[in-house]
């Protein structure tokens, strides 16, 4: 394990420009600086619309920041996600940077078990081992076994959410971004997810999370990070 921060965000700014809405500009944040060390879970705080998800998506490479850098510790060096080429970003995502979104983006026809196995298969784990680990995790998350061979398109919100969580926790990603992973879960399932997060932290993962549920937040947060302090002037 390294004592270097696994995520370094420097002087980050994001402004949306909507060209087809009379060039409306929506400034979100500017001069934003944040570091996250191994074993640390930084929880993004602030009310809706303050830019928590925008920051997280900018770190994942899903949004393109206007200025600044997002360095992720990958393979013994820092990769600046804002400058890296598409294949480099995909490589960092495959091996280092996991992301649990609020919603599962369903791929038609692919059964649940296979979806959950995919991150392992893509990292060269054997089919048998991948299947075993996916089964264990789906059992732990109490997803009925009758669902495993079905594509999750028709599942309830909570069930899809658990498939999403299983996909991201089946491998030990060194860096994890969690965008309300427990939003549509009941108390028991929330507790299971909290345990998964705590285990990953104990093993040295660096995390950035958004949690509206205060119990979950208190159980996993190392510290809070107010996004509003970097509010960009409109």
């Amino acid at each position, binding site marked *: 394990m390294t004592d270097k921060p696994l995520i370094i965000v420097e002087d980050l700014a994001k402004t949306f420009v909507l*060209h087809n809405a009379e060039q409306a500009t929506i400034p979100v944040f500017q001069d934003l600086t944040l570091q996250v060390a191994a074993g640390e879970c930084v929880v993004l705080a602030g009310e809706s619309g303050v830019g928590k998800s925008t920051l997280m998506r900018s770190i994942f490479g899903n*949004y*393109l920041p206007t200025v600044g850098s997002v360095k992720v510790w990958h*393979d*013994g*060096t820092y990769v600046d996600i804002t400058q890296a080429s598409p294949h480099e970003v995909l490589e960092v995502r495959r091996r280092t940077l996991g992301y649990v979104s609020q919603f599962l983006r369903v791929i038609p*026809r692919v059964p649940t078990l296979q979806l959950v196995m995919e991150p392992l298969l893509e990292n060269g784990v054997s089919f048998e081992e991948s299947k075993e680990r996916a089964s264990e995790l789906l059992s732990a998350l109490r997803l009925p076994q009758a669902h495993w061979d079905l594509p999750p398109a028709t599942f309830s919100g909570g069930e899809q959410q658990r498939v999403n969580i299983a996909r991201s926790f089946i491998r030990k990603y060194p860096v994890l971004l969690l965008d309300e992973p427990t939003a549509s879960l009941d108390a028991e399932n929330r507790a299971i997810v909290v345990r998964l997060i705590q285990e990953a932290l104990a093993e040295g993962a660096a995390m950035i999370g958004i949690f509206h549920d205060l119990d979950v937040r208190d159980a996993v947060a190392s510290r809070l990070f107010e996004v509003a302090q970097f509010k960009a002037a409109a």
Partner: protein
Amino acid sequence: MNAIPGRIAPAPLLSVEGLTKWYGHVLGCRDVAFDLRPGEVLGIVGESGSGKTTLLNCISGKLTPTAGEVRFDTRRFGLTDIYGLSEPDRRRMQREEWGFVHQNPRDGLRMRVSGGANVAEPLMNLGARHYGQMRQSTIDWLDRVELDTRRIDDKPRNFSGGMQQRIQVARNLIHGPRLVFMDEPTGGLDVSVQARLLDLLRELVRDLGLAVIIVTHDMAVARLMADRLMVMKGGEVVETGLTDQVLDDPQHPYTQLLVSSVLQI
């Protein structure tokens, strides 16, 4: 800073530079440049008439560009401008190392010979003569694209549009190409058939480590298939980037329009 150590960046499989095509005074595409790596899937998106197909045809050796180079890492000559090769050499390279899946299966299949013969033909073109082996290989591929292998001797016209497209896919993968071009491969199919075919293509591309250039006007197809996108408008590339970034945070006015015009269901 950005180089990923421990892995020497492999040379590009395909390198396009300054590619321009004029049809008289009408612009097809202008000054297109990009590199494609082995195993990478590039999506070219844009509305009808934006130059997607012109670009694809220029890259795939079907249409001589007015200016620019298309360099491919050929097995026999290394990284070479394909338009610098002699016609027979270029055709041989296309047959051996490339595949091309057309939107309309009738453009990619020979309708007078059986589905099985269509699939086996590329092997024969490359010198295979053992009938039993070719038939077995054909049966394997029909199975792989989820077609009933008992229908190996049926003519393409007796298959549905979705099945014809599967035959075309098998025909274009059986000889082990390294680069496959796809022009709206699911364009003419109804949505349920489209979803199955896309899923099949996605699996094959991943399992075979194929490099693919896929042209589509369908953003959902682009999201599902492509690692990265090139957005075209009026013959020019207006935006490029990681697929989910281009679709979720488009920068160019035209891309914003394109993405916001997608109907939600």
